[in-house]
């Protein structure tokens, strides 16, 4: 079962092609999307399900159980990213506050994302080649992470 990625060039005026939903970026960014979710989505969903079984103090330092709302928002987040070509499977963890955490590390960059029950996405992006690109911020717009995860920005 092969994916049929489509390429969209997006400018400030919006996507150039009609059809599948494209992500928006303040700069021109090439984003390729899949017809079907990446195979890793199933693994991530299984892990998210398992996070819900974590008890109080699961980390031995007073961590709270993962909230169902956080797991649900994280599921939506993962599903969205699974349609973007170039996004690889993250490490799936939990934060001491009961939010869901996703981690990617490609060597030259790393991205740590936590998602709470309201859908707020807090993320830290570290660019090991240029720390001027580092980010520590939060958003409700998943699309902001696409250029970071695909490194295809022009």
């Amino acid at each position, binding site marked *: 079962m092969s994916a049929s990625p489509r390429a969209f060039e997006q400018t400030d005026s919006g996507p150039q092609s009609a059809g599948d939903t494209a992500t928006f970026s303040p700069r021109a960014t090439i984003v390729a999307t899949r017809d079907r979710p990446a195979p890793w989505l199933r693994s991530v969903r299984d*892990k998210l399900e*398992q*996070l819900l*079984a*974590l008890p109080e103090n*699961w*980390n*031995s*330092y*007073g*961590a*709270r159980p993962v909230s169902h709302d956080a797991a649900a928002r994280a599921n939506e987040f993962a599903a969205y990213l699974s349609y973007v070509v170039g996004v690889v499977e993250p*490490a*799936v*963890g*939990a*934060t*001491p*506050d009961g939010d869901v*955490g996703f*981690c990617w*590390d*490609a*060597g030259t960059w*790393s991205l*740590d994302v*936590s998602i709470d029950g309201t859908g707020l996405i*807090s*993320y*830290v992006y*570290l660019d090991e080649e240029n720390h001027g690109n*580092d980010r*520590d911020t939060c958003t409700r717009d998943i699309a902001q992470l696409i250029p970071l995860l695909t490194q295809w920005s022009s």
Partner: protein
Amino acid sequence: MSVGPRVGSDEIILKRIPSQRLGSPEMTIARPGIGLTATSFAICPRRDEKHPSWSRQRDEASAEVLLRVEAEKGRDISGWRVAAVEVRIVRDELGLDVVANPTEEDPGHCLIVPTSQQPFTDKIWSQLAKRTRIIYTHPAR
């Protein structure tokens, strides 16, 4: 909670990391060019927690002892890991500080504390996580 004297920069501090067995959260990550480290979520404090707890490494057995404390409370420590970082890195590279805070349960207990130069931020935990290394994994059953 009163904080004690600064821990020496030549010391190493340790943190328990939950097991990465099936069904457990992934709290370590293999980083290209670095190796296996903790994730930021494994070492950051709760939002309502003033200072995250660590333990001073006294000897080579310290890592296992740190886990056995939990085993004695009934926790299954199979596969649990211990992350380590040098106090020098915490202090000189990241601008945080480490102070002693011994407890009855853990005489080596210490705290990472913010400084006037470096407050606690999500970014600092991501940076610290990259500098940890996994030094011990308890055998799985």
